[in-house]
């Protein structure tokens, strides 16, 4: 690599166009400019996440307790599935860079195969993210929200495990008239309701002495520091009176995991990243067909593969940061 900038042979060539002082073609430069600006957008989101988290540092949900599911398996497996998704994305990055490498050597068939594998990897990742969203929205234990918007979760004192609302709630038979379209001019539908009413949860809680309430507050000192605060039965009996709404799963307004902003940022940041992966897959498919048709063979170089490769690696790069700041830290 030259350390000095070459500006052509003569004076007239400097301003004559066709110079590449940075040794990169116009298209590649523009892809890099786009990537830098997109990196700043993602940084803005992650910095905003950090802002909200530092603001509520003592009550923020613990990611390990939220993302514990693996498809087709029951039980508690924190991090495993996200680690799998990370690996899939790194793997598809590798097949992409192999496609670029094969492109440099003008091996059309190798480029086709590596591009194909990259697209498959991207599709698996987007599918995994959709599944993760569905699980997150559905929720698993359920919780009670207080008047002040705090989330109260339940723990079984005998096992020390989280208790789902379905485990202890009392079924109280009651009649409920459904509001229908024909009864209201502007009314469309009721939307989804939690499976239990506040009374059912409260009665079940009073009838089960082993159920305790866990608050959002993270213990700051002592042996259990870093864990959520577990109230005694007496404190729990006092705290349940604050309950106002039953919350199951997550939406943009409230979620059963804790701070409302947590779900908002989850949807926004992983959603924006997922959109990037999706558009990356679409662009990869277009280039994939171009490679099959021999467009770049006729053009004489595979730089287009390199350019979409840059975008694809960038998506992987962003995920590395999302993984750390959303799931690990």
């Amino acid at each position, binding site marked *: *690599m*030259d*350390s000095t900038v070459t500006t052509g042979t003569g004076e007239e060539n400097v301003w004559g166009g066709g110079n590449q*002082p*940075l*040794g*990169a073609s116009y298209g590649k*430069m523009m892809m*890099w400019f786009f990537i*830098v600006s997109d*990196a*700043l957008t993602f*940084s*803005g989101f992650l*910095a*905003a996440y*950090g*802002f*909200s988290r*530092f*603001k*509520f*540092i*003592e009550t923020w949900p613990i990611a*390990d307790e939220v993302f514990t599911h693996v498809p087709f398996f029951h039980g508690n497996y924190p*991090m*495993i599935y996200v*680690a799998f998704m*990370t*690996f899939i994305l*790194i*793997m598809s*990055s*590798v097949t*992409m*860079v*192999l496609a*670029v*490498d094969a492109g*440099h*050597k003008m091996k059309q068939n190798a480029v086709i195969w590596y591009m194909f594998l990259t697209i498959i990897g991207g599709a698996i990742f987007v599918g995994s993210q959709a599944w993760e969203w569905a699980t997150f929205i559905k929720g698993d234990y359920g919780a009670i929200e*207080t008047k*002040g918007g*705090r989330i109260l979760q339940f723990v079984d004192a005998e096992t020390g495990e989280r208790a789902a609302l379905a485990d202890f709630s009392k079924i109280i038979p009651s009649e409920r008239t459904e509001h229908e379209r024909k009864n209201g001019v502007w009314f469309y539908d009721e939307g989804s309701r939690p499976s239990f009413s506040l009374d059912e949860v409260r009665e079940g809680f009073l009838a089960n002495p082993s159920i305790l309430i866990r608050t959002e507050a993270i213990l700051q000192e002592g042996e259990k*520091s*870093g864990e959520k605060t577990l109230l005694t039965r007496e404190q729990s009996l006092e705290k349940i009176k*604050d309950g106002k709404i039953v919350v199951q799963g997550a939406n943009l307004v409230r979620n059963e995991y804790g701070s409302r902003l947590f779900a908002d940022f989850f949807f926004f940041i992983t959603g924006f990243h997922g959109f990037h992966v999706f558009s990356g897959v679409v662009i990869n498919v277009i280039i994939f067909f171009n490679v099959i048709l021999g467009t770049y063979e006729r053009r004489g170089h595979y730089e287009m593969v*390199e350019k979409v*490769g*840059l975008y694809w*690696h*960038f998506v*992987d*790069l962003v995920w*590395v*940061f999302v*993984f*750390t700041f959303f799931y*690990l*830290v």
Partner: protein
Amino acid sequence: MAHDQKLEIFRGLLKFKSNTQKIWGVLIFLSIVTAVEVVLGIYKPHALTHSYFLGMKLLNWIFIILTLVKAYYIAWDFMHLRDEKTALRRAIVWTPIFLVAYLVFILLFEADYVYNVYKDGFIKWNF
């Protein structure tokens, strides 16, 4: 760029025979780093979660440093920044680093202030 690829990582400690081999080598390295992160994230060793450096848990420092290491190898080897001209590489890398460091510093400082207002000010939030 087919003929002037730099085939060594870890500052020349590890040299590869071909670009393909280098790619697989980097993959193995990134996988190991990710595996270390996941294992630490699941077990959360007591020694690392209860000791602090500059106000942050040691474990979180490890996570952030490993993330930057991973980002470096993705950008340098997968995005071929290692083979680009120094001027282009610096323009791409230092611009976001400067702006992001600035933004993060401002936002996190402000957030800590807001946290203290909630904590010590006369604001009722836990009801």
